[in-house]
């Protein structure tokens, strides 16, 4: 069954987003450690949406849905903050990153490290989708 959470784009809501994901991940059968990775990846995705897609405007909406299928825990996060090309965000060289102290890119890098799959889709009506997939323990 698909579970959904829809919240306004403010960092104040990151806590409720994490609580929602924690409940669903534990319910799906993940141990704490794996659940924590999913929670952080979703936090990073939503933080990026709040910062970059909606530029801290609280009017934006973030729709999160969680689906458990074929032994995969699939989190879909949709915003309508205008299309975004993930390929334009350079992957940080971690050493260089520390030297340059340029913020940004770290969240996407973490998402990739923490999840099994990260997929970005441009949808109709200026919507973006990030799909985060974690394989369930066998």
């Amino acid at each position, binding site marked *: 069954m698909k579970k959904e959470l829809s919240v306004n784009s403010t960092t104040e809501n990151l806590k409720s987003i994490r609580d929602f994901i924690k409940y669903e991940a534990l319910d799906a059968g993940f141990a704490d450690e794996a659940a924590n990775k999913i929670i952080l990846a979703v*936090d990073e995705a939503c933080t990026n949406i709040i910062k970059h897609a909606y530029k801290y405007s609280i009017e934006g909406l973030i729709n999160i849905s969680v689906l458990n299928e074929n032994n995969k825990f699939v989190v879909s996060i949709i915003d309508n903050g205008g299309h975004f090309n993930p390929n334009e965000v350079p992957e940080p060289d971690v050493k260089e990153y520390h030297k340059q102290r340029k913020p940004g890119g770290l969240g996407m890098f973490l998402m990739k490290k923490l999840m099994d799959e990260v997929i970005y889709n441009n949808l109709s009506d200026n919507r973006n989708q990030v799909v985060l997939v974690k394989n369930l323990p066998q």
Partner: protein
Amino acid sequence: MAEFNVNVRESGKVKVLDLHGYLDAHTAPELEAAFTKLIDNNSYQVVVNFNSLNYISSAGLGVFMAYVETMRDNKGDIKFANMKEGVYNIFDLLGFPALYDFYPEEEEAVKKFDSSDNSEK
């Protein structure tokens, strides 16, 4: 209870920051404010005690990256202590252990500042 708070205390010449709770994009500005205040007071030798920190996202990690050079340029540093494994793993994923000092106990981190002061004399 607040989601996050930071408490500043002194251990000799070293400032110790105790972090509590959840450090994310929402709460990171509180930590930034604490660092700004330290710099305003010319306090550059800082140990961060993570004992009560349960969660950190890249927004929190970014705060340390933003302030560490200022501390180092002024003969100080930001050293990390008492970090829980789950929190350490995130620092590790982002390459921090090669560039920052981590200590199991706050006391050791504080001592490290004292011994580096002595060796300069």
